[in-house]
């Protein structure tokens, strides 16, 4: 009998597959989160502080949530640092032309459509131009942040001088006073190159982070002290150190690691991606300039974006815009990590700015405007080539 006992004890865990001790660790390339390689120990500590604030700090009524808001924490919209689920997508409204938002006194630009008990959320004013936005992946942002202004200008071709039908505009925009210059900052008529957000409205990661706490969660800070509900200047509900740690975290999140790069279909797909002009906007390789964080200073990386605004045609024109972009313009979406986006969107794809495309192919077919040619070339591919191209994109 003792033998049965012993056997059964050993048998139970064995029945759970060969993982006797516990589930195996996923490979690095299966996950988006994690720091860039070669951080110093001090930098890793800071990364972890930011990680905790980004991923574990849930705001409640008592800690300052709202009163009107769109999400309860960074992680509620950026799960696993990946793309967000449409259940937390939000709407911005009130501006249809470059310049100013006429609805700032009616709650614009962001619609805080949720409220803690006892409060009324904002309602979209009827007739207001608007777009809804699904949260993008937030990995590798330190690399994008460290691309020099000059490099971005060099990629642009606002008047399509090379005649390939693809222009690409720098978003010259105003910026809040609390951000500071990057090395080699270039200005034009008092405006700066902004690069984050789907309309490239946002100057840098501090701007993005302070804005997100304020607009998305209803948290006031030293940087953004105005309460979205009352419009009053309030005490900070989060300290500067935490914001700075989160910015550091975002800067040092590793770039997504591509998978299956030796697969012949993926290799063929990569060539097609180049041939049919996808790479003219989704630039495979960029370089960083100087960064005080050694691990991201002067590095080559592969985001598949040019950080520029492109006219994407009428289908993707919601009639809403931000800063000095036109309503038909969107910043080229980085394609890195796209193959893992299902892991943070509940096992499904919700692509493009508002999540309307339910597959990679559908996302391509929505392309128009400057990408019209490229899309047509895609449609001209045979079935095998199409699947090679899609496989390649999924491998990113």
């Amino acid at each position, binding site marked *: *009998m*003792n033998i*049965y*006992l012993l056997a*059964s*004890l050993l*048998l*139970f*865990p064995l*029945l*759970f*597959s060969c*993982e006797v*001790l*516990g*589930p*195996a*660790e*996923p490979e690095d390339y299966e996950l988006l989160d994690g720091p860039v390689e070669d951080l110093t120990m001090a930098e890793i500590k800071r990364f972890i502080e930011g990680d905790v604030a980004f991923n574990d700090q*849930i705001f*409640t*009524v*008592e800690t300052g*949530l709202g009163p009107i*808001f769109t*999400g*309860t*924490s960074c992680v*509620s919209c950026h*799960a*696993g640092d990946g793309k967000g*689920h*449409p*259940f*937390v*997508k939000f709407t911005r409204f009130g501006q249809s032309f470059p310049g100013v938002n006429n609805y700032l006194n009616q709650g614009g630009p962001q619609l805080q*459509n*949720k*409220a*803690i*008990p*006892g409060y*009324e*959320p904002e309602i979209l004013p009827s007739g207001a131009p608007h777009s809804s936005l699904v949260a993008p992946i937030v990995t590798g942002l330190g690399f994008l942040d460290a691309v020099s202004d000059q490099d971005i200008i060099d990629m642009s071709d606002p008047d399509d001088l090379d005649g390939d039908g693809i222009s690409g505009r720098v978003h010259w925009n105003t910026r809040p006073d609390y951000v500071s210059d990057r090395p080699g900052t270039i200005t034009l008529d008092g405006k700066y190159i902004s690069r984050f957000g789907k309309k490239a409205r946002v100057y840098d990661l501090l701007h993005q982070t302070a804005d997100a706490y304020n607009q998305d969660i209803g948290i006031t800070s030293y940087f953004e002290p105005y309460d979205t509900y009352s419009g009053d200047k309030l005490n900070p509900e989060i300290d500067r150190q935490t914001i700075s740690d989160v910015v550091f975290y975002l800067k040092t999140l590793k770039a997504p690691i591509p998978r299956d790069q030796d697969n012949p279909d993926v290799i063929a797909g990569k060539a097609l991606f180049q041939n049919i002009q996808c790479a003219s906007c989704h630039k495979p390789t960029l370089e960083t300039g100087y960064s005080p964080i050694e691990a991201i200073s002067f590095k080559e990386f592969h985001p598949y974006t040019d950080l520029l605004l492109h006219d994407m045609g009428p289908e993707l024109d919601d009639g809403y815009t931000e800063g000095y972009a036109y309503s038909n313009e969107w910043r080229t979406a980085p394609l890195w990590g796209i193959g893992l986006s299902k*892991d*943070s*969107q*509940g*096992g*499904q794809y*919700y692509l493009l700015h508002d999540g309307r495309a339910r597959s990679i192919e559908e996302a391509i077919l929505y392309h128009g405007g400057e990408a019209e040619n490229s899309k047509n070339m895609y449609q001209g591919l045979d079935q095998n080539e199409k699947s090679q191209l899609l496989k390649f994109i999924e491998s990113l």
Partner: protein
Amino acid sequence: MKTFTLKYLKINLIILGTFCFSSTFSQENEELITNKNNEKAELNMDAVFNRPTLGFDKIPVTLGGYLEANTMYRIEEGITEGLSFQARRLTIFMAASISDRIKFLTEIEFEDGGKEVAIEFAALDVAFHPLFNFRGGIVMNPIGAFNENHDGPKWEFVERPDVSVNMLAATQSNAGFGAYGKTYSGNWIFGYEAYLTNGFNSKIISNEQDKTYLPAYKEGEDIFEDNFSGKAMFSGKLAIKNRNIGEIGLSYMGGVYNKFEDDDEEVEDKARVDVLAIDWNTTIRATGTYIVGEAAWVWVQTPDTYTQQYGNKQQGVFMDIVQPAYKRKIFEWEDATFNLAVRFDYVDWNVGKFTETNTNIGDQIIAITPALSFRPTPKTVFRINYRYEWQKDILNNPAEKAATWYLGFSSYF
């Protein structure tokens, strides 16, 4: 998805496995599983007084308690924080027979090395009639099987059931009063409990778990002194038992949980929480197999304009199957017993679909825990558990897997 169904298959295998072992070790002793009490005229709800150290017959004041400690090794998605040692809780009971019909019992729990001290129970009982006893003070809300019967030494598992402690709020007690009673007829026993107590508070829908979470009410201030909503909560239970078949209990608690009025002014719409639970326990005579479990449902009203992060409906279940496997004299212990056991846990904290996408909301856990326990005497249990769990985030992304080994003991003193 594919791997998920595969895992279910494996779960089935395990359960099947347990039954196979059961038949091998049939006709083993029942007496030594302390959390079975079929022979006596006792119901699950009698557990507060059904503790080995407490005897009311002789001495006016008695003292007792239990201690639980364990080591734990957890591997989450391949990553472990290493081995940890936990002295989970030390609980002390003190009881006094004030007169024939009046008794007092209190249960004080020290958790986390004394950082948390909680009065779990402190009530005066007055017996007027078997069918009518008064109880007042800090009473345990009679919900499900576990809340009133939570002593560590009674269970073969180091962890408490997920549904009982992570969906329901065991151990849940509140200031209040009410009545309980019992009656017998042949093999049948029937009992009831009914209390009015303080209720929940708004923490249940605004907390760091980022989900509707009843246990969060404990983080509220002055919960034993203040009734957050200003409305009493009702909790009650009906239980019926046949000495040959087993016991089944039906329990309910509910009330308004938010502070809808402040200074006599209405500041929020009234919002209710309602909880329903069914619990059962039985011993299969032929094999001595003891089965206990509970299923529970929670409904919480939230404003439509709040976030779906906090669900309106929850459900969960746990079931333990305990098979005495081997009994003999070991050292001086006459009836030392080995038990094989398995627990199944399931909780869905957010039942429903996202309005944006009409897809299922995740936020659920499934776990299976095979266990081996050794009871040198009924009062003391040494246990080895292996818990394997699949947890899905709210977005219904692929489940995260974790395995935990436990080695621990729990003993009355």
